[in-house]
């Protein structure tokens, strides 16, 4: 497994996609938070001369509709990312059912034999919130 990180805006070698001088117009990646119960989500990028302007342009481009409570803009060259080529980084080398709800679907049948009902996290949430 290679541990290299790569900016999403850069190609390998010297033909960088963000060969701009350090101060000037450059690419900012934009993240919108639709509500305070949701995380910021990457929505795209803008080309701006400063973080303040990136926020202005991001508001015009990405929040004309729908709700937003917060905006992040991040200079693309400040982002560390995995390279797309390194597929092994996300490899699932064996069955991961044991980590998931679907790995325990037999519980319901077994509860039935004890004349009891299986429960889910949704039941608990509903009960605690509304009950």
């Amino acid at each position, binding site marked *: 497994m290679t541990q290299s990180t790569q900016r999403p805006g850069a190609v390998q070698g010297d033909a960088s996609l963000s060969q701009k001088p350090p101060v000037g117009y450059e690419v900012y990646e934009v993240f919108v938070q639709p509500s305070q119960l949701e995380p910021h989500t990457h929505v795209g990028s803008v080309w701006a*001369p*400063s973080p303040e302007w990136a926020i202005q342009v991001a508001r015009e481009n990405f929040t004309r509709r729908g709700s937003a409570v917060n905006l992040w803009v991040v200079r693309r060259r400040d982002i560390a990312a995995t390279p797309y080529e390194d597929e092994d980084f996300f490899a699932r080398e064996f069955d991961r059912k044991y980590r998931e709800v679907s790995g325990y679907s037999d519980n319901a049948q077994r509860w039935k034999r004890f004349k009891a009902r299986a429960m889910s996290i949704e039941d608990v949430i509903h009960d605690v919130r509304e009950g």
Partner: protein
Amino acid sequence: MTEALYTRFMERIERGEKIEATDWMPDDYRMLLLRLIHMHAVSEIMGAYPEKEWVPQAPTLRRKLSLMAKVQDEIGHGQLLLRVAEDLAAPLGRDRNDLMNDVITGRVKFHNVFHMEAPTWADAGIIGWLVDGAAIITQTALLDCSYGPYARVLKRICAEESFHMQHGESIILALAEGTNEQREMLQEALNRWWEALLFFFGPPEVTDSARKMMEYRIRSRTNEELRQKFLNRYIPRIRAVGLTIPDPKLHYDEAAQRWVYTEPDWERLGRMVRENTGPKSQERIGLRRRAHTEQSWVREALVRARQRQAV
């Protein structure tokens, strides 16, 4: 080396994988995408001009607001698409300034429909209904594009276009429900736009670059397939509101399962787009030139302000 990269690239394309800006790609893949997306971006921006002309004259406040919202959308779409084009153009040493200068110098084409006049409110309606309708068909056909950044931006654009579709329909429905004079105005607008709408999808023959784009899974449908989809969808609706399509030859060929139509004047309309000689080409390019040059001091001032902050 390059041959191995190319083979691997084509395997990825055939597996239906998405290509990213940072991935290796053949030069012609980059150039085909850049030409397509550059023209798409510029067309969004130039498409705002015929619509913005109608903002001060829109018949009601609601129409004015919705038209302004649409103009904002078109400019916004242009900016999203420019970002995608810029990342493709960066290894060629070209940035947004170069891409926008190409409009002024005539190095990039924009859609034929935006070279034309929109003399009445019914034209604004036909643009919203049928020009946007045609654009939605070509854009949805690109949603499965093999280039990830373009496919992602198109998803957002298509979601917003669904408002444009309703907006255009609302205008023409109001006119179709209106007085004889309003219906006549609508018919005259349709007469003006019909040929341009057929031209919009491009020539029926599959060019070399169109074939190459299909191989690279940039697009999956031919111009003629898309034009037929448009005709299928819109002809019944155009007729339903009592309009006559200005083409005596137009009929559905049951055996061939396709619409037969009078070909638009490919030569004349093609020249108009290539040479920017439409009735409104120069005026609208002039507006773009003015916006670009007269505001260059703002762009420079913003950069200088930032430089001063950074010291």
